Structure formats: structure tokens, C-alpha cells
């Protein structure tokens, strides 16, 4: 038996339906006629023969049904009929259908949106070939395990690495300058090894990518460059004829050979590169590796394999590695999972809750409508429809609703999925792009099936068992059976409980966000900007001369009119964790403890406290001479002072931060006794220094001249918008040293607004308010429809009550009391669930504020909304004229 023949047969029966049917009839007519002729030949009268043939063989018109059944299309025809009937009944109750479809549209749309966001931002964010095998090798310093370190490879190390992996890319970033034009302009260049094109597997948008022939084995690398899409748009205005032209960088001519597509923004984790240049040892001494593992190699295997290799490298270049370390390769997606994994998990959980509310709502509506259909279903049952057949038909109706909802939801999801990306721009990989793909369509179809069955099942099971004799005896209006009442109450209660959870989470998120925005920072970020200043490549190794140079830069900027105060801060900004990202150990003279105390060490100039308006609580701030020297002085914050000298006598004690010792790296310069004992000369007030969501860490401030790298940072307080001073500051810096550049300029308030916790909490506040609002609306619609359907069903009874003298208020009360009791029950369950979930929620949203008063507020809000929703239809019902109703009977 060939399945193809079956398919062809079905296809024809469905597509060429009427032609096939005529043929079947014609063929059968011929069969009947042949039989009749035979009978005539046997001696029967022609009329009698025709009659006998017809009696024996049946009517040709019936034959087409036999045909469809014989070829196995019966189920298809029946379900087709159910679908048509379902759509017709949806069409006949437009208000119910619209609300039900809308409820599922919201639920399915939001769930699909979150799924596609998770899919494209966490599961498949990178466009690179074999992206799931690309790892970022890091080493973990055994002495400071919380500080992750990357390592550079020399050319020969790079080549020996290449043997043990699928492929390896080396890159390093450098700030270059466009020369040859009117004004020098900074560009960020990425030197990439010449296998970049094959490593990424992404073709260039224009021209070609970097290829091995750009760096011949012997001799000079060719001066070619590939532009990033953004640089090409901004600098060349998207000129399509760019390939082949020349770009002068650091007074060298480079030929532009290609432009990368917009989705490719390699090194986004470190900073966006404007141009890609083939790497050669004479361009940059070392490269950082990205490694593509061989298929099937586990991370543990890779770690073990690289450990021995790196131990060998450490022998050759000890300064590239910590004293003792272990390798820990990291898949390139991991930082993003770390950053957004719990956010997305929480959002997904909440859209699932929203979807469940939508399903419950849909069930409530179907049940309510089903009450009005009791009569129809009873008659169907009475004339022989099986329960299975009725359940199937009711399910097909709810599936029709869910699939309409899914179709609209998928369209909406495309737009919804963008919202988190917009609100948390730095948290997701830039290269992620949300598209509707096969997986997402499969997911949404699965979701539609699931919701259709879920929302249709309980109404279908309930309604398919009509009490035939009772219903048929009554008129439809008078039948006041309690079928489905308990189910409805359960659904309404469940909806309320879930809505309560969402409202509670939304409230906590908003409270958390308000706490962050109104947080006392301990310093004043208003009108302050941070300017990152790279020092020259061939900087002075001499500590004193470097210190003086930085001070000259600071001094020169402070003379600009409108600049109120300038400070040097070499170690990152508050509240970002400075100095390597985490507190480190320090010693207190005369205090021995097994666990060394921990503090954040900041390298600043004496103007730092005035510039950020951090008040001095006691003691003094170091002076200019002490600042130049760097050694022997330190200032601590209040937290540190109180923790170790609770009696307030911190000043005069000696502390030591060993990590400040000169590590002998080529780019660093330290004062002679940087890692030795220093006296605490002052205590300043606390300021946020360990992220907005965490408490203030103990902090030590030392003069920046203690330890300097190849870049520093100026904090500039201005009168008025800081960024308006950028030009004047650039001019001032260049007046000190003609080729002095700036790299990154940020408004401090802007930095705060880009803190992950800030953006995350804002995202939570907005999305949860949105979800909770939707959930509330859906629940209220559910309540309203239950009350009005109950009213409609009980009109007769209520009219009699009124005729017998019941007051309107009493009528309203008997209508709403059951629903209100359900709502109350739902709220109680919601409170219990919320308390049970609180620990998980706290873990997922560290910035949210959970409090009992909030639960009470949410409960009150729900109760008020539900009461109003109940009262509106009930009031209308209480206005019926009993005489009229009873006369109608």
C-alpha cells in the first residue's frame, strides 16, 4: 500500500470535491442501470427491473458518502463540520467570542514574545558559525578567586594553541586616530588574526572579510581594513562605493576591503570596534584568544587540556599570568545568562500566569455561554449524539478560539518581544535579533493546542452531560440548574489568586524601583561627568613624572570657566564596584585575624570628596604634597571605621593594602612603598560603592599616585549640563600634550541609569504593571460575565422575589454574594501563594521590596475592583420590571 496513492486520493476528494462526487454518482448510476438491464434480459418488466435495482442498490446520491467513508475521510468531514459549526456559533455570540479570543491573544502573545526573546537572546544570540562552541578562556587567580583575569598570548603561543582546538581567534583592541583630515578622530580598532573570516563564518556585506592572504607568512602584513556597519554608516554615510578607498589611521594608509553586516558587532563584550585590521606581531605584541572547541568537547575537558598548555606558557611569559591559577573557559553566552537569566525566567513565569488567567477566563466564558446552550445540547443528546462526539465538538469550538488567539498573538509577540530589549539595552547581546522562525511558530501552535484544550476541557466535560429529561421539560429560561457553578467559581477564584500574585509582584517591583531612584547615594552625581583618559603608549615608567603629568591634566581642566571642581579617580566610579570589581583584603596593624578584613580600595586625588560632595566626618584630607608622594596616608569610609573602631578612634591607626604593591607589569607604575603601612588621616561619610542593591562596603581611599596604569579618569563637576563642556575639555587636554586623547565620556547620572539593577527594576516595574493590569482586566471581565449570565438565568426567580416584595438592595446582594465570596477566597489563596513564593521572588528580583502593607493594599484594590464589577451588572438587573418579565412567560 503506498501512502502517496492515499494522499493523492484524499487530495482529489477534498480539492475536486464536486467533480469527484458527480463521477461517483455517474459511475454508480451505470452500475444500477447495468443490473437493471440484466434483470430485463432475464425476463423482467423494465419498470419492475429498474425498481428492483434501485431497491437493492440504493440511491446514487448516497453513494458519495459511502465513497468518502471508504477512502477514510469520515473523520475529516466530521471535524470540518465541527469547525464550521464552531465558527458559526462564535460568530453568533460576537461579544463572548471577542473577549475570549482577546484573552487568549494576550496570553499567547505575551508567552510567545517571552519565548522568542529567550530563544533569540539566550539560546541563539550570536550569528557566528558554531557559536555554542566558542569559549572565552579565563584564568582564575587562586589568591583572588573573585577577580577574573584574561591572558594575552604571544604569536608563537597562539600558533601552538591552534593545534589542540577546532579553531582559535586572536584579537586585541587599540585606540587609533584618523589622520589626514581636518580634525583627528578616534576610532576603536580590533586587530584580529587573519583567520577571522573562517572563524566567524559571516560573509562581509560589501567586499570581503579579513583572510589569511592579508598576512603573508613572511614579510609585512598588508594594510587593509574591514569596517563595522555602524562606523560605515556614521563615518561614510553608508557609501556603497567605499570598497577600495583609503583610510588613514595613525598616519598609515589602509585600503578598505569590506564592510561587515549590521548584525556583526564583534567584541561587543569589551567595546564596539569601528574597524577590523589583520593582526601581525609588529602591530600589537599579544592577542587575547577566543576558542572554538571541537564538537563534543566538554568544558571540563577543555579546562584540563588548556591548563597544561597555559602552565607551559607561564614559563615563557610569567607576567601574563597570576602566580597560581586555574583555567576556566566560559561559553561566550554565559555573561548574558548570568545577567538576564533570572530576569527572563521571572518574566516567563509571569506570562505563563497571564496565560493561565486567559485560559481560565476563556473557560468561564464558555461555561457561561454553555448555560444558554443547555437546550441545544440536550436535544443533540436526546437524538443520539454520543458524549464523545459532543465533547469533541465543544473542544473544536474552544480550539477555534485559541487558534484565532494564537494567530493574533504571534503577530503581537513580535512587537512585545522588543520591549525588554528596548528597556534593558545593555543586558542582551547586541547581536541577538528577534525573528519569527520555525521554532517559534511550532511553539505557538503547541501553545494554541494546549490553551484550547485547557480552556475547553472543563466546559466540554461539564456541558456534554445534560440532564435531558429535566431540560427538555423546562423552557430554556426557567431552567436554573446549578451545572457548572462550582467549576465557574473555582475558575474565578483561581483567576483572582493568580492576579493577586501578579499584582503583588508588580507592586514589589515598583516599590523597589522607587527605592532605587530615591536612594541616598551618599554623593551627588548631578552635573558630574567622568572622562576616561588613555595615557600614551610609550608612557613614563617613572612614577613621579607620570603623577605630575596627570596632575597637570587635572589642573588644566579645572581652569576652564564653568568647571567647578575636578578630581582624579583611577579606579572606576561609584556605585560600580571599583578596583577589579570586588573588595580585597587589607591588614590592620596590631590586629591579627584568620580572615583578613575586606575593603574596596579607591585610587583618587584629594579633590575627589569635594567634587562628589562626600562630606569629611573627622580628621583631614591629604594635601598636595602627600598626594604627589602617594605613600603613608589613607582615608576610610564610615562603614570601615565603625566596623573596626566602633569607639570612633579610627584616625591614627595603620592599615596596609598589599595588592597596591608594584606588580612590575610594563604599563603600571607604583609609589615606592605603595603596599606598606599607611596612617588613617580622615573618615568620610558613606557612599554607595558596591552596586545599588547591596549595602555599602568598607572602603579605603588612597592617593591615585600610589598605583597608576596606562589610563586614568577625571571627574568633572560643572555648572550646567556637563556634556556641553566636552569640547573645551578636549582643547584643554591637548594644550597640555598635543596628542592627548579622551576615550569615554559619561554623565554620572546617565551611568546610574544604565546600572543593570536600575534597568532591570525599571523593566520589571513596567512589564509587571502591564501584565498585572491585563490580568486584572481579564479577571474582572470574567467576574462581570459570570454575574450577568447568572442574572440572565435567574431573571424569573428574581422577578418573583421582587413581586413578593424583596427590596432592590436585597436582590443585588443575593446576586453578588456568591461571586464576592469566591473573590474573597481567591484573595486568601493569593496571599498564601505569595507568601510561599516570596523567597523565590526575592532571589529573582533582588531589587524588589516585599512588604506586608503591599499585600494588604493589593488585596484591597482587588476587592474594590471586584465589588464594582459585580455591582454594575447586578444593579442593571435589579432595575428589571418584574411585571413585564412575568407577563412574558
Amino acid at each position, binding site marked *: 500500500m503506498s501512502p502517496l496513492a492515499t494522499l493523492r486520493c484524499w487530495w482529489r476528494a477534498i480539492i475536486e470535491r464536486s467533480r469527484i462526487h458527480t463521477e461517483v454518482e455517474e459511475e454508480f448510476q451505470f452500475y444500477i442501470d447495468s443490473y437493471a438491464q440484466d434483470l430485463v434480459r432475464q425476463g423482467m418488466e423494465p419498470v419492475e427491473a429498474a425498481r428492483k435495482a434501485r431497491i437493492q442498490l440504493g440511491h446514487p446520491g448516497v453513494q458519495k458518502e*459511502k465513497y468518502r467513508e471508504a477512502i477514510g475521510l469520515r473523520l475529516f468531514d466530521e471535524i470540518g463540520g465541527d469547525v464550521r459549526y464552531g465558527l458559526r456559533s462564535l460568530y453568533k455570540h460576537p461579544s463572548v467570542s471577542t473577549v475570549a479570543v482577546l484573552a487568549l491573544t494576550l496570553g499567547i502573545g505575551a508567552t510567545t514574545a517571552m519565548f522568542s526573546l529567550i530563544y533569540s537572546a539566550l539560546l541563539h544570540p550570536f550569528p557566528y558559525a558554531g557559536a555554542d562552541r566558542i569559549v572565552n578562556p579565563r584564568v582564575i587567580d587562586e589568591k583572588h578567586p573573585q577577580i577574573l583575569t584574561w591572558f594575552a598570548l604571544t604569536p608563537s603561543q597562539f600558533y601552538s594553541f591552534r593545534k589542540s582546538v577546532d579553531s582559535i581567534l586572536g584579537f586585541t583592541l587599540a585606540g587609533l586616530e584618523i589622520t589626514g583630515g581636518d580634525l583627528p578622530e578616534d576610532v576603536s580598532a580590533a586587530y584580529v588574526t587573519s583567520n577571522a573570516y573562517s572563524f566567524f563564518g559571516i560573509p562581509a556585506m560589501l567586499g570581503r572579510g579579513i583572510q589569511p592572504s592579508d598576512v603573508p607568512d613572511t614579510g609585512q602584513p598588508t594594510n587593509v581594513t574591514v569596517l563595522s556597519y555602524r562606523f560605515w554608516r556614521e563615518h561614510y554615510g553608508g557609501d556603497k562605493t567605499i570598497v577600495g578607498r583609503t583610510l588613514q589611521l595613525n598616519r598609515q594608509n589602509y585600503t578598505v576591503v569590506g564592510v561587515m553586516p549590521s548584525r556583526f558587532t564583534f567584541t561587543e563584550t569589551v567595546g564596539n570596534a569601528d574597524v577590523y585590521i589583520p593582526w601581525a606581531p609588529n602591530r600589537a605584541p599579544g592577542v587575547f584568544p577566543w576558542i572554538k572547541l571541537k564538537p563534543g568537547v566538554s568544558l571540563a575537558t577543555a579546562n584540563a587540556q588548556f591548563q597544561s598548555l597555559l602552565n607551559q606558557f607561564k614559563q615563557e611569559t610569567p607576567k601574563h599570568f597570576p602566580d597560581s591559577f586555574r583555567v576556566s573557559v566560559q561559553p561566550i553566552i554565559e555573561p548574558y545568562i548570568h545577567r538576564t537569566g533570572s530576569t527572563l525566567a521571572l518574566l516567563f513565569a509571569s506570562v505563563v500566569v497571564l496565560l493561565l488567567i486567559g485560559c481560565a477566563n476563556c473557560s468561564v466564558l464558555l461555561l457561561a455561554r454553555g448555560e444558554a446552550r443547555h437546550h441545544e445540547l440536550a436535544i443533540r443528546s436526546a437524538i443520539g449524539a454520543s458524549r464523545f462526539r459532543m465533547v469533541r465538538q465543544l473542544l473544536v469550538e474552544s480550539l477555534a478560539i485559541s487558534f484565532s488567539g494564537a494567530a493574533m498573538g504571534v503577530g503581537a509577540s513580535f512587537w512585545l518581544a522588543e520591549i525588554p530589549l528596548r528597556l534593558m539595552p545593555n543586558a542582551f547581546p547586541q547581536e541577538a535579533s528577534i525573528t519569527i522562525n520555525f521554532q517559534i511558530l511550532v511553539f505557538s501552535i503547541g501553545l494554541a493546542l494546549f490553551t484550547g484544550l485547557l480552556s475547553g476541557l472543563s466546559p466540554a466535560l461539564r456541558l456534554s452531560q445534560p440532564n435531558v429529561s429535566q431540560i427538555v421539560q423546562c423552557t430554556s429560561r426557567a431552567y436554573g440548574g446549578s451545572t457548572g457553578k462550582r467549576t465557574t467559581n473555582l475558575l474565578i477564584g483561581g483567576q483572582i489568586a493568580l492576579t493577586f500574585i501578579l499584582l503583588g509582584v508588580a507592586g514589589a517591583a515598583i516599590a523597589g524601583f522607587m527605592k532605587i531612584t530615591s536612594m541616598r547615594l551618599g554623593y551627588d552625581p548631578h552635573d558630574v561627568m567622568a572622562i576616561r583618559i588613555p595615557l600614551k603608549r610609550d608612557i613614563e615608567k617613572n612614577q613621579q613624572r607620570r603623577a605630575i603629568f596627570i596632575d597637570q591634566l587635572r589642573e588644566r581642566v579645572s581652569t576652564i570657566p564653568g568647571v567647578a571642581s575636578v578630581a582624579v579617580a583611577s579606579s572606576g566610579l561609584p556605585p560600580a564596584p571599583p578596583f577589579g570589581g570586588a573588595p580585597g583584603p587589607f591588614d590592620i596593624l596590631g590586629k591579627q585575624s584568620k580572615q583578613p578584613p575586606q575593603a574596596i580600595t579607591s585610587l583618587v586625588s584629594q579633590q575627589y570628596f569635594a567634587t562628589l560632595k562626600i562630606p569629611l566626618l573627622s580628621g583631614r584630607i591629604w594635601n598636595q604634597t602627600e598626594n604627589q608622594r602617594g605613600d603613608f596616608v589613607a582615608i576610610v569610609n564610615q562603614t570601615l571605621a565603625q566596623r573596626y573602631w566602633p569607639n570612633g578612634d579610627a584616625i591614627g591607626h595603620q592599615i596596609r593594602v598589599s595588592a597596591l604593591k608594584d606588580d612590575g607589569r610594563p604599563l603600571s607604575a607604583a609609589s615606592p612603598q605603595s603596599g606598606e603601612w599607611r596612617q588613617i588621616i580622615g573618615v568620610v561619610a558613606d557612599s554607595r560603592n558596591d552596586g545599588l542593591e547591596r549595602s555599602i562596603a568598607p572602603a579605603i581611599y588612597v592617593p591615585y599616585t600610589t598605583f597608576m596604569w596606562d589610563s586614568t579618569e577625571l571627574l568633572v563637576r560643572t555648572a550646567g549640563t556637563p556634556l556641553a563642556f566636552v569640547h573645551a575639555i578636549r582643547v584643554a587636554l591637548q594644550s597640555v600634550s598635543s596628542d592627548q586623547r579622551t576615550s569615554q565620556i559619561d554623565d554620572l547620572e546617565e551611568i546610574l541609569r544604565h546600572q543593570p539593577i536600575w534597568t532591570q527594576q525599571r523593566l520589571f516595574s513596567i512589564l509587571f504593571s502591564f501584565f498585572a493590569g491585563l490580568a486584572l482586566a481579564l479577571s474582572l471581565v470574567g467576574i462581570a460575565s459570570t454575574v450577568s449570565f447568572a442574572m440572565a438565568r435567574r431573571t424569573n426567580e428574581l422577578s418573583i422575589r421582587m413581586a413578593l416584595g424583596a427590596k432592590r438592595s436585597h436582590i443585588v446582594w443575593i446576586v453578588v454574594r456568591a461571586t464576592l465570596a469566591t473573590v474573597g477566597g481567591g484573595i486568601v489563596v493569593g496571599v498564601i501563594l505569595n507568601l510561599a513564593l516570596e523567597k523565590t521572588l526575592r532571589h529573582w528580583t533582588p531589587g524588589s521590596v516585599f512588604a506586608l502593607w503591599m499585600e494588604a493594599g493589593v488585596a484591597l484594590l482587588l476587592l474594590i475592583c471586584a465589588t464594582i464589577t459585580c455591582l454594575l451588572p447586578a444593579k442593571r438587573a435589579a432595575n428589571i420590571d418584574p411585571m413585564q418579565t412575568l407577563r412574558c412567560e
Partner: protein
Amino acid sequence: MAKPIDLPQGSLEMLILKATSLGPLHGYGILLRIQQISGKRLEILQGTFYTAIYRLERRGWIEGEWGESENNRRAKFYHLTAAGKRQLKVETAKWADMTSVVASVLQSKPEEV
């Protein structure tokens, strides 16, 4: 004339395949052919006859084509397809197997049982 016998389940299909293997026939022709070969000893139920033809056609074992009948009317003639020929062979072998086994069991003598 001997008493007509009822067909066991599924064997009607086999007979239709056999009938069409001798050349294209229309539906009534198939019926006549089977009755003729069997010496009118087979009772074919009218209700199931066409159902069997439709099923065989769906499976791709026979194929219908419109042609002209002996009395110049449009009629649908069925012929055996390649797949149908294979199927007929398989069914025939199976049938022979089954009948011989059943027969040998039924013909066994009391002392053998």
C-alpha cells in the same frame, strides 16, 4: 446449483484484484466476472462491493479510467496497477498457505489429535 457461500472478511478485495488482473473492467463487469468464475456460488453483498473497490483504488492497487461500455455509455474501467499485481501475488500466496494449514488441521484423523 450449489448453495451460495458467504465470503470471509477481506477476501472480496482479493477477488476484485484477481478479476481486474485479466483486463480492465467496469464495476458491474467485475461483479459479473467474479460470479461467472465462481459458478455463481459466491454471494456478494451489494453494500460492501463498491466500498471494496473504493478502498482498493485509494490504496493504489487498482486505477479507474473513464471509457465507453459495450452499450456505448460512459463507464469507469478499472485495471490492476503494478503495486496491485504485487499485492495480488502476496495475497494469493498467503491465502494458499492459510487454507492448506487450516485444511490439514481439519483433515487430521482422531488418533493424530
